[in-house]
């Protein structure tokens, strides 16, 4: 399992170095093992540098930059070992319009492999849905749903 962890880590790391600049339209990021000699206990550090900015502690990144970096990592793992479905609950909340556009583009690509279910309040994100489930509470405390098929396959 030590070898499997190392292999998976390297694959995810390679993907992460690809996905981050796609979401940030530039810049670079990499994962680092905090203890290369102890694969059973080592932690994983994230090093991220948005385009044009100097490399600094990830803690100094903005709310939107942190969310987008986390999305880059999650999606990288997903691309290496896809699940049948991926549920994202308001992940786009801290993102501005430009970043939501790039986020949606990658989700579209990944939805060829797996089923994506995205909860959102954002109109731009709603636009990439093929089916929209509207959840309502006309009767207070009682949830109902209405589904709208947008695209036919």
């Amino acid at each position, binding site marked *: 399992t030590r070898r499997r962890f190392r292999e998976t880590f390297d694959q995810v790391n390679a993907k992460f170095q690809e996905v981050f600049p796609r979401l940030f339209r530039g810049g670079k990021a990499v994962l680092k093992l905090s203890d290369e000699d102890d694969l059973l206990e080592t932690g994983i550090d994230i090093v991220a540098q948005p385009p044009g900015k100097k490399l600094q502690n990830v803690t100094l990144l903005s709310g939107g930059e*942190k*969310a987008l970096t986390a999305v880059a990592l999650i999606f990288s*793992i997903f691309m290496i070992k896809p699940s049948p479905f991926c549920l994202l609950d308001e992940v786009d909340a801290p993102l501005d319009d430009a970043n939501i556009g790039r986020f949606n583009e990658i989700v579209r690509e990944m939805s060829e492999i797996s*089923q994506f279910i995205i909860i959102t309040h954002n109109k731009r994100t709603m636009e990439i849905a093929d089916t929209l489930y509207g959840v309502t509470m006309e009767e207070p405390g009682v949830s109902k*749903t209405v589904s709208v098929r947008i695209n036919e396959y």
Partner: protein
Amino acid sequence: MKIKRLDIVGFKSFVDKTSFEFSEGIIGVVGPNGCGKSNIVDAIRWSMGEQSAKQLRGKAMEDVIFGGSESRKPLGMAEVSLAFSNDEGLAPAAYREYSEIVVTRRLYRNGDSEYLINKTPCRLLDITELFMDTGVGAKAYSIIEQGKIGMVLNAKPEDRRFLIEEAA
């Protein structure tokens, strides 16, 4: 194995039986604050065997049973079913002849739990093993709950390794 359908009744704010078809393509879920969108995510986690009420925003597991509203009485049971399609024959040996595999979980207010696969009673262990074998169990990176995306960057490096471990 693809997910086909989710059926919810008596779970949190889904009083009446509600079915979600997992149709082709991207599914968007929308609606005002508090209408029940995140409760759908909780229902999926719960059907996969979630044992921690805290992970479902509750204090005790009984909190997931519909507790009533101004127009409805509380219910005595919560039930969620998750249906998988087995068209590609990828299911574990025991279920190979089924075209559909339905996992059902029930919780009664007295604390009793029931677990079923294709309407046959089974143990929680059978359900978690089925999810493991079909690759659906990797919740850590396939379910990102509301407000939790920040945890990836704020986590201690040691706490982040489970993301790689689940994929390994």
